[in-house]
């Protein structure tokens, strides 16, 4: 079963690559004409020669095969602007992005589930209404704008957190001190990214918990005199959390998209800022490689969610 899941993930990855390539192919503009234009013109024979040299005279599927072969060897092309291989560029950016995204998702998931459970227990309390309002607001606010507003409040008006970056550019801290410095820089961007999804998870876990609390086995658990927190956190939450986990996996692509915007706002040195910089420089190979890499990340996360899901839900295991 897990093997089938992995094969499927590979097929998806391949599909992303094919689409990447098809996009460049479909895009207007002829690279050879551009190059020739920059050189100040050339004879038709020379243009033909260049086309052959770059393999651009080959049919679509041969070009595609060449591209796939290169990617398989880890060659994602060369960034003309940064003057380095794309893979090397991305390599240093992956860690910061994963740090940011994972922190944000963890904050949103734990806090969101907790708030949702609280709200579900008292359906018409002020807390429940507050959760509804909060999730509406969270859904409606552009994430990059939240980031800027948080900077205005917590970095400018009250200088508690740094405005941008992952560490001081002239940092001399090492070890634990460096870790704390990164953490200090991480708080605002992670909170910004978490806020949007916090609203979503809160609402989802509230709805799912309300469903579960009405079920017979919860009534049974109460009837046999279990303490409230045991009923909630041991019996009910186990089932209520399933849709939340599923959505957390499915939404990962969206979280990454949010990360692009948040990183841009906070100058966080991850894939998102790299994507922003490559847009400014119209650096297509870099942007395509980032798209491919992010898609792979989402595919892997989805696969892991699937497997975790099986672990949480014994019914799924029994079905096999």
């Amino acid at each position, binding site marked *: 079963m897990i093997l089938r899941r992995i094969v499927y993930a590979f097929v998806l990855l391949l599909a992303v690559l094919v689409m990447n390539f098809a996009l460049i192919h479909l895009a207007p503009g002829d690279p050879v004409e551009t190059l020739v234009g920059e050189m100040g013109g050339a004879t038709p024979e020379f243009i033909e020669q260049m086309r052959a040299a770059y393999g651009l005279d080959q049919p679509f599927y041969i070009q595609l095969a060449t591209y796939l072969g290169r990617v398989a060897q880890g060659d994602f092309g060369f960034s003309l602007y940064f003057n380095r291989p794309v893979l090397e560029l991305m390599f240093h950016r992956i860690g910061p992005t994963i740090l940011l995204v994972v922190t944000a998702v963890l904050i949103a998931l734990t806090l969101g589930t907790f708030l949702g459970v609280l709200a579900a227990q008292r359906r018409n309390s002020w807390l429940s209404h507050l959760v509804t309002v909060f999730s509406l607001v969270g859904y409606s606010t*552009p994430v990059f704008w939240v980031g*800027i507003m948080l900077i205005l409040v917590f970095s400018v008006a009250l200088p508690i957190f740094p405005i941008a970056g992952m560490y001081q550019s002239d940092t001399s801290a090492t070890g634990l001190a460096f870790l704390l410095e990164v953490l200090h820089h991480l708080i605002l961007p992670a909170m910004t990214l978490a806020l949007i999804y916090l609203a979503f998870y809160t609402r989802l876990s509230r709805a799912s918990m309300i469903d579960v609390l009405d079920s017979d086995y919860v009534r049974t658990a109460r009837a046999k005199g279990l303490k409230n927190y045991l009923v909630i956190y041991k019996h009910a939450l186990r089932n209520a959390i399933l849709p939340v986990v599923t959505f957390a996996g499915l939404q990962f692509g969206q979280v990454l998209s949010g990360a692009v915007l948040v990183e841009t706002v906070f100058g966080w040195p991850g894939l998102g800022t790299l994507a922003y910089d490559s847009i400014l420089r119209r650096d297509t190979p870099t942007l395509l490689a980032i798209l491919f890499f992010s898609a792979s990340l989402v595919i892997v996360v989805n696969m892991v969610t699937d497997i975790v899901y099986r672990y949480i839900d014994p019914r799924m295991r029994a079905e096999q």
Partner: protein
Amino acid sequence: MTYISQPSAPEVPVPEPVSPARQAWRMFRAHHAAMAGLAFLGFICLVSIVGPYLYTVSPRDMVWAPFTPPGASQYILGTDYLGRDLLAGLINGGRITITVGLTAALIAVTIGVTVGAFAGFFGGQVDNILMRITEFFQVLPYLLFAMVVVMLFSPTIINISIAIGIVSWTDMARLTRGEFMRVREMDYVKAERSIGARNAWLIWAVILPNAAPPLIVVAALAIGNAILFEAGLSFLGLSDPNTMSWGRMIGDNRPFILDNSWGVTLPGTIIFLTVLAVSLVGDGLNDALNPKLRHR
């Protein structure tokens, strides 16, 4: 023989038959927040349509000293870092944002409903293939994909709308598929089938109207999503450089927030209020069209 006159039947007021649409509208009207949202959206649309003719200051021209705060000049909302009128920017930007939001949502809904309808109606292998395609689009990081598309093809309104549309239809497709699978098994659909109705008729005229209520709610929310999406793209600089849009105003003014925070706060607040209004309308539609799901 005496006739006992029959007492005439007591006058029972017979309620006027109410059409489902009218009933839904009644429910919607009772949702005050949704009505407020609808009013605000109406206002935004009106300003976007007629505003540029009434307030003729160009959003691109330098009209006053840069960084003029609101209320300090004849340009009541002040100016941005290039001395451009912020009010003119908001009025003209609304046009682009609303146009892209509506067009992109329309594209997303069309693709989503079509894919979902075919998958749910035919099931089997068709369903399998269409759902695989849907999953593929679900794993694409939406924003990055749209960024690539807009960068490779030029950032025109239509390209941006298409880019947003083709990554936003998956939720719609899944929901439509589910509804179609549910409605397909209903007796009235079987009855139509038994008298020889064609598939096209079944999909369009029989199942779709009965599957529509939850779809309408999600379609409304799709508009809000598309507006946020457009704002994100133009914040990153991926919008038509010749037109103003709310997201672009935020992106342009962001480096200057220390001197000019209103250049960022104002457009952001408008985006927030507009999307909030859309979600409130969606909430109201949900109450009106899916009464069973209320209080969720």
